[in-house]
């Protein structure tokens, strides 16, 4: 009998909580801030396997090793390509500054030229080296840019057994929309760990552009980490899968890994 009372009480409590939550859903801005406040460690190293599949099913596979480190609020990331032969030793270095009005600095080392080339970081909507992720997606990874979008919380629901908030992000103006290549983004954000589990992207004409899934999310060194990212590009039927392995947080990553001479020399 006590058990039944407890169960009934729980159902009432859960129901009332849901109603209360629906009435007081956190704002899109609050959710975005919570996403950005999530710990991702001072530094990280990991291996990344990129599987690119075209609409005919032909696969291209790239293996990379990457390092990321915060220097104060400035985030520096470097990616070295290990295979295949035709992109081996290609390396990409970026300095992501906290100031919203300051463009990032980016360099690309192309072994065929044996030169480090300075590249513009302003065209954030360009696709990154043949993947379905844009340079902005790669840079922000599991974070978001607060000032690019206005966000509204649509609802809360369950996604694959996880409670999530569903938020709609609209670029603040046409210029940002054109720059990013997105007219709208719907995100499913895990309300317990503040990680995006799914995103639907729409282009600037409102057409469904791509779907991104963040999968195999588990803790590494107490930091929630997605180990698999999948993107379906609905316009091109091209698919990109990122598989992360050997992820290590906060192990000493040398400062000089994030220099032009380091990407020239390779890993």
């Amino acid at each position, binding site marked *: 009998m006590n058990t039944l009372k407890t169960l009934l009480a729980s159902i009432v409590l859960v129901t009332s909580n849901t109603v209360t939550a629906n009435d007081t859903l956190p704002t899109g801005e609050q959710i975005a801030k919570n996403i950005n406040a999530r710990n991702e460690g001072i530094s990280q190293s990991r291996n990344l396997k990129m599987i*690119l599949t*075209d609409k005919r099913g*032909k696969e*291209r*596979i790239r293996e990379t090793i990457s390092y990321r480190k915060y220097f104060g609020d400035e985030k520096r990331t470097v990616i070295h390509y290990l*295979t*295949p*032969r*035709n992109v*081996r030793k290609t390396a990409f270095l970026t300095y992501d500054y906290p100031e919203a009005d300051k*463009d990032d*600095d*980016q360099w690309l080392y192309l*072994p*065929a*030229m*044996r*030169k480090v080339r*300075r*590249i*513009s*970081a*302003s*065209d954030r*909507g*360009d*696709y990154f*080296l*043949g*993947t*379905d992720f844009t340079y902005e997606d790669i840079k922000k990874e599991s974070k978001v840019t607060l000032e690019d979008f206005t966000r509204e919380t649509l609802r809360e629901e369950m996604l694959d057994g996880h409670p999530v908030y569903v938020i709609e992000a609209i670029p603040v103006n046409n210029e940002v929309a054109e720059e990013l*290549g997105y007219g709208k983004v719907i995100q499913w954000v895990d309300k317990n760990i503040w990680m995006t589990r799914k995103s639907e992207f729409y282009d600037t004409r409102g057409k469904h552009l791509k779907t991104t899934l963040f999968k195999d999310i588990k803790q590494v060194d107490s930091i929630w980490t997605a180990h698999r990212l999948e993107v379906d590009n609905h316009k*091109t039927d*091209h698919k990109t899968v990122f598989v992360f392995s050997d992820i290590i947080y906060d192990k000493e990553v040398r400062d*000089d890994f994030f*220099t*032009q*001479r380091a990407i020239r*020399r390779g890993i």
Partner: protein
Amino acid sequence: MTFLHNVQYVAASNILVLTALLANPVAADSLLDNSTLSTRIESEWSVLTKDGSTQKLQLMIEPELETEVGEDSSITTIVRLRTDAKDNLSPDDHNQAELRELYLDTTISDSIVIIGKQQVVWGKSDGLKVLDIVNPQDFREFILDDFAQSRIPLWTVNAEIPINDITLQLLLIPDQTYHEFATVGSSYAFTSPLIIPTTPPGSNVTINQTEEPEQILQDADIGFRLSTFTNGWDITFNYLYHYDDTPVSFRTIDLTASGVNISINPKYKRTHLIGGTFSNTFGDLTLRGEVGYLTDKYISTTDPTDTDGVVKTGELKYVLGFDWYGLTDTLLSTQIFQTYLDNHEKGMIREELNTQITFLFKQDYMNETLHAEVLFLHDIDYEDGMVRPKLTYEYSDEVNIYVGADVFYGNENGLFGQYKETDRVVSGVVIGF
């Protein structure tokens, strides 16, 4: 066994492994535990548009072996094997086998030290060279080959030392190797009077053997580069004391009863190179530039009264480039390139000021599996130039296919116009594994 013994052992092993691989890949496997072997195979076919004849039918194989030595050192060996069924580019070299690069890359404290046969690349420009002259160049295919392929690697001691926010690069190059020019009669032999001194008709011309420096250390090239990144600017300051890779054609004229006897005495001369580079981005635009000043440049003169047939001058070169990334997956790039001789005299085979411009269009399609590009170079003063469209398709991770054209136009005395009879269509396959 000491570290140096290890290095020597691995260097020798690398060469042995590469040799073995060519004969028996299975036997070589056991030597590759700490090594990464990759190979690039390129087959290229070019056809002259004037008559449809095959100009080049080349197969090139480049195995590269990288062996880890200890925790932070490696030895890289690159060998090049090349054969051309047509022999129009280098008639004397049907088959070529060469050790392209062999170097130890290691760290000492925070410094990187690279010792061995290698390429050192300076500069920011595309298609034209101002500071990228540390290594000489192979001109068997004019400037149509990728610079990474046409640069001639040199035995070099190369150290990069970080000093606070500045990196100091020191170079010592005891290797006395210079430009290799296309041989007379080959497709890209120089004929332009901008390069080849002309002699009066009917004169007897004797070209003597080129005088080369012989002392390994005293004649070594030395140089340094300071580089830094500050307030969004990449900046370098470069200095090189080196032998110009083109010999100076000293000339003597003897008037005899039998006629005019002209003697050409080619000799390599030393010069200082002082220069620098910069680059920054402004929104969609990347600005980049480089400038270099050669203190001792010798230019041939047609003035018969000149005692040695050359005039010594300083030469200022600079290039200013703009890369625009405003369109998706597209690069539009333009450069202006100028050279100025500060002691110009009448009769010199080059103008006091020469201006060239370049335009480059690159666009990627199909998730960067298809690449289109057009490079256009134009010499404003000599009114000649070249256009190079190219389409590359990544058929798979291992196989790239390309087709393109090299079209020359303009004044046949110009640097580009001299080849206007060698317009060609090029196609090729590159296999990497």
